[in-house]
């Protein structure tokens, strides 16, 4: 889950027009008719619940992260690029997704688990900034240093941003048995996915591949990045992940990445970043198909509980807002951050 520019920083509940969670809303706002009466179709009340939760979680995230930022990296609070606000929004989204994952895993999303969701969101934001924002040499060096952290536990803290990152990681690792066999594998799979994505981007080899292979590779990269990230998130908010839900968590993560990539289509292209959704010929229709396939699979495969319903409602809401964002971004050359505020 990445954040560069306005990536992952939208406010799905706050930005979508009211009523857009219904199939009628989908028709009206995206122009992409979805089959009416599908079994996965979220109840409007569930969409409202997403809105309510997001509002509450935004306050929780602020209360948790602001003291940490003030302590370790106060400069971030004054950052003119609104980076701090973007960090809060990503963490808010992660807190909500963590809620759904925790309940899918069969555990109540209590305060302690919510805290882990917030910390993981912040951790992702900072780790992504190391990889995305400081140039190719720094990207490669950070990947080496993060691998060293994962293989030895050592991380040489050099800047205030890194101090905040490590303090957050320290809190997360203290809150959860990080040596759980599934969680530690998920962390390493996420790291490998990030590294492959980075190599693809920095090496530029993907452009030389035949189109079909190129698309398959880009799609797999998107799937793995967010598929493994959501598994790590679940590992931090739930005491145990049953194997039976792993494929569906992975599916939900992959869908989030594709939705993200469609919303960020134009800013990604401006930065020369190839994604599956900005390379296919008809991205909106492709995303619609992916959305329908993934959401039906999730609904059919996950245990019928509040977590599943929350996840489906969130994804529907997110799909809508990112379609809307894509359209608006097409009309504006500027960053779409303003769309949400």
């Amino acid at each position, binding site marked *: 889950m990445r954040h560069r520019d306005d990536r992952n920083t939208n406010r799905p509940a706050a930005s979508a027009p009211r009523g857009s969670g219904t199939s009628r809303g989908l028709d009206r706002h995206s122009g992409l008719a979805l089959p009416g009466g599908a079994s996965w179709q979220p109840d409007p009340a569930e969409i409202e619940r997403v809105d309510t939760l997001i509002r509450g979680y935004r306050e929780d995230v602020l209360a948790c992260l602001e003291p940490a930022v003030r302590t370790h990296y106060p400069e971030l609070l004054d950052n003119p690029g609104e980076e701090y606000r973007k960090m809060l929004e990503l963490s808010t989204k992660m807190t909500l997704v963590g809620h759904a994952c925790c309940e899918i895993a069969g555990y109540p999303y209590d305060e302690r688990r919510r805290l882990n969701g917030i910390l993981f969101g912040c951790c992702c934001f900072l780790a992504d900034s190391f990889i995305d924002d400081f140039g190719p040499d720094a990207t490669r060096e950070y990947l080496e240093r993060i691998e060293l952290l994962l293989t030895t536990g050592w991380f040489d803290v050099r800047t205030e941003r890194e101090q905040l990152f*490590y303090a957050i990681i320290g809190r997360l690792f*203290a809150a959860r048995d990080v040596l759980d*066999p599934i969680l*530690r594998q998920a962390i390493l799979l996420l790291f490998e996915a990030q590294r492959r994505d980075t190599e693809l981007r920095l090496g530029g080899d993907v452009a030389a591949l035949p189109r079909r292979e190129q698309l398959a590779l880009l799609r797999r990269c998107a799937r793995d990045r967010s598929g493994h990230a959501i598994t790590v998130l679940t590992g931090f908010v739930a005491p145990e992940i049953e194997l039976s839900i792993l494929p569906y968590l992975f599916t939900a993560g992959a869908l989030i990445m594709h939705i993200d990539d469609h919303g960020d289509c134009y800013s990604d292209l401006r930065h020369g970043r190839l994604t599956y959704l900005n390379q296919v010929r008809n991205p909106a229709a492709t995303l619609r198909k992916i959305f329908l396939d993934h959401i039906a699979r999730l609904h059919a495969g996950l245990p019928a509980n509040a977590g599943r319903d929350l996840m489906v409602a969130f994804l529907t809401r997110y799909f809508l807002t990112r379609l809307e964002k894509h359209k608006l971004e097409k009309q504006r050359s500027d960053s779409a951050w303003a769309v949400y505020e």
Partner: protein
Amino acid sequence: MAAAEPLGDVIALKIQELRRRQSEPRPLVRIDNREAAANAPFQFDTVEARLHRNGCRAIPSGSRTALYGLWQIPPQARQYACAVCRPEADDEDEMASDGVTDYVFGVLSVIDQFGSVIRERGREFRESAEGRQLKAGLDGLFRNLEDRERATLQVVLTSLDGLLATIADLDKSFDGTQSHNGNGTQSRNGDGGHP
């Protein structure tokens, strides 16, 4: 102005500073279990929701980046068994049954690795106002213990002391032919001694 730093953050950051004091820092904690996971007897494909034996030719190439190594087959995973390789419980490998001893060795390795620093910090702390206050509190606590509780505590402390002495003797007897604290070696099942 920076806000007060929570104690946990201070400890986490101070631990990282210890690395600079060591000429050849040994691993602190290894989260990475890629090698062990790749060699686990079973592989669970999260893309296709399929459980395979390690090396099964039916594992799709597109799933190679989303495989989880498993040492045992959880009951709920049997429904996902691959029809080609038919994974069975016979192939299950031992998970760490010696989790408790791994914890002891973990604590000892930290003491071994950072012993001099911990001692130095302990001396400083004992002389501080907080240290003196804590010592008075501990003395009071010890006085108030029942005879049986006091005896139990004494046994625990003596055992720990004896264990440390034994480990130190063993360490010397290795004569430098083995890894100093064993931290760099793989645990038997690669899960880091998860109990």
